[in-house]
């Protein structure tokens, strides 16, 4: 029997004069004790779908059509007061950002008690006892009752939030990207907790995520969303063995994995259409490798290709073989890519020896230094031309501080950084500026890494001007060459960053770094903020550029599948120190330290890391 049935849900948002339709006819169901995953890239409408179920749409948003039945009662027919009893009672929801989802000025106990009072009528001693029971159920001790959110870690906050939402003993729990903001080891624990709670309580779980690996660990059935619609609906087993919709197939094909090392990743051209698009025919047609005339004129129906396996694609309608030929066709494009082992030159481009960055802790009346935070504490490694060294670690391990210290954006406390054999420590003024041309950085966030008030041409020219590398007259040609190299149109020169998508902005950031012809690129989580299909494009671009220019990459990341796909060597960082380093294949398959083992074990869907037999 189904607990939650969503039928033909449509959400509209009035944004100024425009009417957006971010959710456009979504139907799915969740059974008792079942986990359904709503899978999609950013902007596909999955979060709004969840908020619509809770009737918590943001201002300007409204449910335009459809129904949601919770145990046969239509939630959209309820009064606001009745809905208040459902929210946090029978239907609860947890959110992505544990940082901001809890009230900062109330203790954990106060926030749990509110829910207990609202849904169970508990107060006083009874509430206190129940709150302890809930905390223990999510793996927190009773001493956390009187803690404020700022005194908890990210994982603990997410646990506290889950405890609050369990207060009403919900029939269905909605989890909107519950682990996206967390470290991989914490993610594994929270996912395990959700799984256990679901089984103990017989809860339905709606898991909203962009991560195929998380889905493979958690879900019973999967709904794949694209441009406001569900394009594929199947059991997990069916979806992972025979994905039917070309979009789902592409999602699998673009994933970086150990067994795809040396191959070009498949990629998905274009971008997700916005919620104000007008569609004729199939919404995926513009990006579909298997597109044919009918897709452009006729909207595909939702076909049940095999029992329980639905796909919104003309190919799923009759001819099964056609669909699998398409799949094989673009499998073929991957084969034949360069898989040759790389050759490391002997002299390192970057050599870091015993580098340390300590921040003083000042206290008291005169702000005396009472201690130090050892953000980076004695790190040594080298990177050679044409080589990628991946620096892996969880948040707070010091990897970003390390990058900034290498670039001399902050002064190191001790140790030495040498670039092409020359130590940087003694360089000052002009000599240091010259040296800067040899190392550059690409940041994580494609939105804050480009000045919104400068044209792309000006952004690319900035480094050349600062380091006066080329005569002014030669710069325009060089800028066009750079745009060409990173795959952007030439007319980008006169446009502003906001006119580009996240992936394109990251290309601009790469071109900016390349403009001064560096020997070393520090890549600080360059694909973490991007969708997987875009990530594949950027990884391909980085591989091409490395091959062409013999660049040394220091690739800072927390994402092990990216590491396994592209790193030659890996260094694992924890608490400001490197705990293990070695060749990628060796380290990822036969880790020597317990911490590396823990990282590998925590990665969701870790099958992907291992080579396919």
């Amino acid at each position: 029997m189904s607990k939650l049935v969503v039928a033909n849900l449509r959400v509209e948002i009035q944004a100024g004069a425009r009417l957006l339709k971010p959710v456009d006819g979504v139907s799915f169901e969740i059974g008792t004790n079942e986990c359904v995953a709503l899978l999609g890239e950013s902007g596909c409408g999955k979060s709004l779908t969840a908020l619509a179920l809770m009737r918590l749409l943001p201002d300007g948003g409204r449910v335009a059509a459809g129904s949601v039945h919770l145990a046969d009662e239509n939630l959209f027919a309820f009064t606001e007061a009745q809905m208040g009893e459902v929210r946090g009672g029978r239907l609860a929801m947890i959110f992505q950002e544990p940082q901001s989802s809890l009230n900062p000025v109330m203790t954990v106990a106060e926030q749990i008690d509110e829910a207990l009072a609202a849904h169970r009528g508990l107060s006083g001693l009874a509430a206190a006892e129940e709150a302890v029971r809930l905390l223990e159920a999510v793996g927190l001790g009773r001493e956390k009752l009187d803690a404020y959110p700022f005194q908890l870690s990210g994982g603990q906050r997410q646990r506290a939030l889950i405890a609050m939402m369990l207060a009403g003993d919900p029939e269905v729990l909605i989890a909107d990207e519950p682990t996206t903001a967390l470290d991989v080891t914490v993610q594994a624990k929270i996912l395990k907790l959700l799984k256990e709670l679901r089984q103990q309580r017989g809860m339905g779980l709606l898991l909203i995520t962009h991560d195929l690996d998380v889905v493979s660990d958690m879900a019973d059935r999967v709904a794949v969303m694209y441009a406001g619609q569900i394009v594929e609906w199947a059991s997990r087993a069916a979806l992972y063995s025979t994905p039917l919709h070309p979009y789902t197939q592409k999602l699998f094909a673009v994933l970086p994995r150990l067994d795809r090392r040396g191959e070009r990743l498949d990629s998905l051209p274009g971008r997700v259409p916005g919620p104000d698009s007008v569609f004729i025919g199939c919404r995926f047609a513009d990006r579909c490798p298997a597109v044919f005339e009918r897709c452009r004129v006729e909207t595909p129906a939702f076909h049940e290709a095999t029992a329980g396996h639905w796909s919104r694609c003309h190919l799923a309608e009759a001819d099964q073989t056609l669909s699998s030929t398409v799949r094989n066709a673009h499998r073929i494009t991957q084969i034949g890519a360069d898989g040759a082992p790389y050759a490391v030159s002997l002299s390192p481009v970057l050599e870091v020896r015993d580098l340390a960055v300590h921040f003083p802790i000042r206290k008291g009346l005169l702000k005396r230094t009472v201690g130090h935070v050892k953000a980076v504490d004695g790190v040594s490694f080298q990177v050679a031309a044409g080589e990628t060294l991946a620096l892996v670690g969880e948040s707070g391990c010091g990897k970003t501080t390390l990058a900034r210290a290498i670039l001399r954006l902050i002064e190191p406390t001790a140790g030495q950084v040498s670039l092409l054999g020359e130590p940087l420590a003694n360089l000052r003024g002009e000599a240091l500026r010259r040296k800067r041309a040899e190392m550059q950085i690409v940041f994580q966030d494609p939105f804050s890494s480009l000045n919104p008030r400068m044209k792309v041409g000006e952004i690319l020219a900035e480094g050349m001007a600062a380091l006066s590398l080329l005569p002014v007259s030669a710069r325009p040609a060089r800028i066009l060459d750079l745009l060409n190299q990173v795959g952007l149109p030439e007319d980008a020169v006169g446009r502003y960053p906001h006119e580009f998508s996240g992936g394109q902005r990251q290309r601009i950031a790469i071109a900016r770094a390349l403009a001064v012809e560096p020997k070393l690129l520090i890549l600080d989580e360059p694909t973490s903020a991007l969708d997987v299909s875009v990530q594949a494009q950027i990884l391909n671009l980085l591989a091409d550029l490395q091959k062409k220019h013999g660049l040394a990459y220091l690739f800072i990341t927390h994402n092990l599948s990216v590491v396994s796909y592209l790193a030659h060597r890996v260094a694992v960082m924890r608490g400001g120190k490197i705990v293990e380093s070695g060749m990628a294949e060796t380290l990822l398959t036969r880790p020597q330290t317990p911490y590396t083992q823990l990282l590998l074990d925590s990665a969701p869907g870790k099958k992907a890391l291992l080579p396919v037999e």
Partner: protein
Amino acid sequence: MLNYLLRRVLYAIPILLGVNLLTFALFFMVNTPDDMARIHLGAKHVTADAITRWKSEHGYDKPLFFNAEATGVEKATDTLFVEKSLKLFVLDFGAADDGRDIAREIGQRMWPSLAIALPTFIVGLLAYLSFALLLVFFRGTALDTGGVILCVALMSISGLFYVIGGQYLMGKLWHWFPISGYQPGLDAWKFMVMPVLVSLIGGIGDSSRFYRALFIEEIGKDYVRTARAKGLSDLRVLFKHVLGNAMIPILTGVVVVIPRLFMGSLIIESFFGIPGLGSYTIDAIQAQDFAIVRSMVFLGSLLYIIGLVLTDISYTWADPRVRLE
């Protein structure tokens, strides 16, 4: 905490010293005591003798920073800067041009000021917050839109018109209250009601709109969504969650003015004839009595710094993340 307070006191000294140097520069260096004497004597009576006499009567017949004629330590202390400026630090305000002791005047006049300013502050804060909460509760409806338009219209009217209009309607036309004046004791309320009412109405547009903006900003935050997802009623979300978090920016603007309530309002006191520090100041400005103006500047700065410390202390109560050390 003690440590923190000590540091704040130490930090206050250079600020007050800066204030003193600034006023001293304005009143004794840009303007010389000679200029002052000339203004006070009036064009007809200006003679070199009269100026010298006026200066010695009022204690302005000393050098600015260094007294070469004095002996020993007095070379540095028997100067205008020490006598007129540094003595303010021990709350020695000296005498006004009419010879009256400024410190005593302040002691007497702060009570009427407080009698008007305190009720205005408390009732005002409650009224503006309630009005803003009302608008926010009905956000997006016609009531909210109308309320905001009303606020903008009210804040576009000069404060002088509120006073003039209030006096005309409530005093002259309807005879509710005396138009101006003050008397201590039980009858004081008759004279208090109108100034308080007028100040309240004059401030409603600006403050309510500001508080509404703060609330709307808080409502957009993730924890409010969490609270609603828990199934809490809109009222509880508004009062418990939104108000609780908005208290932090509200306190920033509110607590700092509390110590200054003693100093009263210039406009209100002068229009309504309240014998408080506000009208004392305005009279001094109009009579160009620089001794009083200097004293009030110093007092105002001192109270402001106390206000800053109180603000910091109030944060520890509103925001568990703040610990003073």
